[in-house]
């Protein structure tokens, strides 16, 4: 039996002890004496969130297939456990072996959202790993960051030894071999980091220095010497049908956010919505083959015993073999009594048919994400969805018995006016009106329910909107109020419910997203003031963040309110994500001209990603 790091007296007094004991079905145990290298994967949020992340499951499976490596997991201890670890001076440990993180060779941290950055500091702190890369020795693991946030690693650069830019499947083997080799030769840690930083896709931040103009903008970004690459190009899997995929995902004992098999059907998205970072970062679209997915689905259902399977991708309706895949899954899952949880699909005859087969119409809802209230603004953001498409989809659905509609919008998009905000309310109203017209009174079994949700737009690196300013907090709140008021003025306002997100955290997220290396100081300051679990609104302390900026002498407005000049050097410009800055600029200009750009299936817009020579870039154009 494994010995647990936490004594029973602690485990029985904290919430959900299962978060800390490991031992889940399909978790991997190895013999310490038979491996060369120990890697700990970390998702810096609570277990139930972290366990639901597909990327970690993929890498966990990949590492553990290698005989010389044992990969384990760690998540942010929840507030109660965090306190006990500090009080009792118990170092943070990995779930499988229950050994201290500090004893590992690597600590890999995935960064999925900016508001988890303070949790990274929590992990380092509890593991007793110095915060700064430059203060670490061979006594400490190599701390390496990955995930979408590392496309602008600068705000967290001092805390990491390395960053892995891009998809993890390609370069880890070479990195680990380099590590083994250099450790054997007795190399020092800094030399290893320097050599690692020369591998494709690997960024070793301590060998680079940012320089600033007097106005605070970046004037240059230099490497310690000529041997370090000045551009780090993202790593990418060119053939997603013959690569690692977990055959036996770990099955948590407690209920997690994703308590199901997740089948990733493709990577990337053909649509270049101009606010969307994922749509640019993961270009080009690469579909997994139908035969691989069929095999994977059954294998994972069998190995986990999950009662549900869901499809994952940025825009599942665009997967070319979706009808065949769903047909197969519906048959196989019916036999195995497994539910299919559908991703949000474009609402049309096909998706309605599928939905009616596998969901209870009364309980399911239609989801539309027009993101903006008028066609004008939808052109600005390049969201192809038109009012006609939404209304026609809704009408078909109402005829089929659906009565619940969810609408997602963003407030604070570039060029937004009052008319666009009113447009949100009017669109919701028209959908309600369409219901009343489509469904005769005597056939209305349920009331129509429309839920409008808005979030505040946050400009992200590597999007055409990376030049855009944000708004002051008061303006965001006014915008939310204006939306609410406009909805209340509609004829069908009784059928429309409105939700909106907090503005405070959006501004901080805005800074962390487009910040430079100086922001690291603010992060550490905020952490020392007790900020962590910032992604959890009940633990988000806005005043402490304001105080941290104040104390570090940095202005939030500098990072959020400025419209950046077209020729400004950005902190993330040294990363090549496949899409060129030239393309993004052109898209920003087209946005201002309210012009839409066709998607990758219709026409290639020469974004730059074709250099990878794979996926959609290699296919003939002119489709739908």
């Amino acid at each position: 039996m494994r010995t647990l790091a936490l004594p029973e007296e602690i485990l029985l007094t904290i919430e959900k002890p299962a978060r800390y004991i490991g031992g889940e079905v399909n978790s991997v145990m190895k013999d310490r004496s038979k491996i060369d290298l120990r890697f700990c994967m970390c998702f810096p949020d609570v277990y139930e969130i972290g366990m639901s992340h597909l990327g970690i499951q993929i890498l966990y499976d990949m590492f553990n297939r290698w005989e010389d490596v044992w990969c384990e997991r760690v998540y942010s201890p929840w507030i109660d456990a965090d306190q006990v670890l500090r009080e009792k001076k118990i170092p943070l440990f990995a779930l499988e072996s229950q050994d201290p993180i500090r004893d590992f060779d690597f600590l890999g941290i995935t960064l999925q959202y900016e508001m988890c950055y303070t949790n990274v500091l929590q992990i380092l702190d509890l593991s007793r790993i110095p915060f700064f890369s430059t203060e670490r020795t061979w006594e400490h693991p190599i701390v390496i960051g990955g995930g979408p946030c590392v496309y602008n690693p600068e705000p967290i650069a001092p805390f990491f030894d390395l960053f892995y830019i891009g998809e993890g499947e390609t370069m880890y083997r070479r990195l680990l071999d380099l590590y083994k080799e250099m450790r054997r030769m007795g190399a020092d840690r800094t030399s290893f980091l320097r050599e690692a930083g020369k591998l494709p896709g690997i960024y070793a931040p301590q060998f680079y220095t940012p320089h600033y103009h007097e106005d605070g903008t970046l004037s240059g970004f230099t490497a310690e010497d000529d041997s370090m690459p000045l551009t780090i190009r993202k790593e990418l899997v060119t053939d997603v049908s013959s690569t690692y995929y977990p055959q036996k995902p770990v099955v948590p004992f407690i209920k997690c956010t994703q308590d199901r098999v997740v089948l990733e059907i493709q990577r990337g998205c053909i649509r270049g919505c101009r606010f969307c970072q994922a749509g640019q970062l993961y270009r080009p679209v690469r579909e997994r083959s139908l035969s691989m997915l069929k095999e994977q689905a059954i294998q994972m259902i069998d190995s986990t015993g999950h009662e549900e399977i869901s499809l994952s991708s940025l825009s599942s309706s665009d997967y070319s073999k979706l009808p065949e895949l769903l047909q197969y899954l519906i048959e196989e899952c019916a036999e195995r009594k497994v539910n299919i949880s559908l991703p949000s699909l474009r609402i049309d005859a096909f998706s309605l048919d599928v939905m009616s087969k596998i969901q209870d119409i009364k309980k399911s809802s239609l989801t539309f994400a027009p993101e903006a209230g008028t066609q004008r603004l939808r052109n600005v953001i390049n969201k192809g969805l038109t009012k006609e498409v939404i209304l026609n989809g809704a009408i078909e659905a109402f005829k089929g018995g659906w009565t619940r509609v969810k609408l997602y919008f963003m407030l604070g998009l570039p060029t937004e006016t009052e008319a666009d905000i009113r447009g949100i309310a009017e669109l919701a109203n028209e959908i309600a009106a369409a219901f009343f017209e489509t469904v005769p009174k005597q056939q209305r079994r349920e009331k129509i329910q429309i839920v409008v949700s808005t979030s505040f737009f946050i400009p992200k690196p590597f999007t055409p909107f990376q030049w855009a300013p944000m708004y002051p907090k008061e303006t965001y709140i006014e915008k939310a109020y204006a939306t609410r008021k406009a909805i209340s003025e509609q004829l069908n306002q009784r059928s429309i419910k409105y939700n909106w997100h907090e503005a405070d955290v959006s501004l901080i997220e805005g800074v962390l997203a487009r910040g430079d290396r100086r922001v690291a100081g603010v992060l550490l300051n905020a952490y020392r003031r007790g900020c962590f679990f910032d992604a959890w609104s009940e633990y988000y302390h806005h005043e402490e963040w304001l105080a941290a900026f104040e104390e570090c002498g940095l202005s939030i407005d500098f990072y959020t309110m400025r419209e950046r000049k077209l020729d400004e050097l950005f902190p993330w410009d040294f990363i090549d994500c496949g899409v060129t800055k030239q393309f993004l600029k052109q898209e920003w200009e087209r946005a201002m001209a309210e012009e839409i750009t066709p998607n990758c299936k219709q026409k290639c817009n020469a974004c730059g990603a074709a250099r990878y020579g794979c996926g959609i870039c290699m296919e003939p154009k002119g489709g739908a």
Partner: protein
Amino acid sequence: MKLRVKFSKNGCMKFIGHLDVMRYFQKAMRRAHVDIAYSTGFSPHQIMSFASPLSIGLTSDGEYFDMEVNAAESAEELKTRLNAVMAEGIVVTDIRRLPEGAKNAMASVAAAGYIVRVREGFEQGVPFAEAVERFQKEAHAYYVKQTKKGETTLDLKEGVHTLSFDQNAVTMMIDTGSSRNIKPEMVMECLYSYYGKQRGDFDFVIHRTETYGRADNGAFVPLSEAGEVF
């Protein structure tokens, strides 16, 4: 065909709560390809019902659930298949076929056996041997139970069927289930109370040895006895 499955829950599994154990077995049935019966409807669920929930922190060698299967070859074969997909700490120890019309596991529960041991590194809070003796001699053992509605008093003597002490461990068989539910902690508190003491939260570790139902003649028998070997 209705089967009664007996399992043990030891080691780290003591930290997994009752609802999670139920979810765990639902997934295990799929992994082991057990031909279990499902309810009808949009989200069919497995026909499975558990005997008596075990609190977090306790280990057990006598846990039970019933399940309806469409087909099963033999108990041995099914047991092997299930044990091949278990997490460390859970072992299926017995599977029996229930006769038509048998009461379900939960309704059958009448009593449970426990061993209460002094936790490693802790001392006996009170002299257990003496306390157990006194319990046996007393005519009544009143226990005041805090409930949502206030307090109720029950006489533990009516629900404690055996109680003994041997080598640092108190062994007992006590009423469990819906009609009178006694917890081993309640008995321990009673023993402490003889000395005017209160038990500490972590003074001992508790292990359930068996869950019992009543035979036709009124005798306590392990729940598995209601079924037959197949």
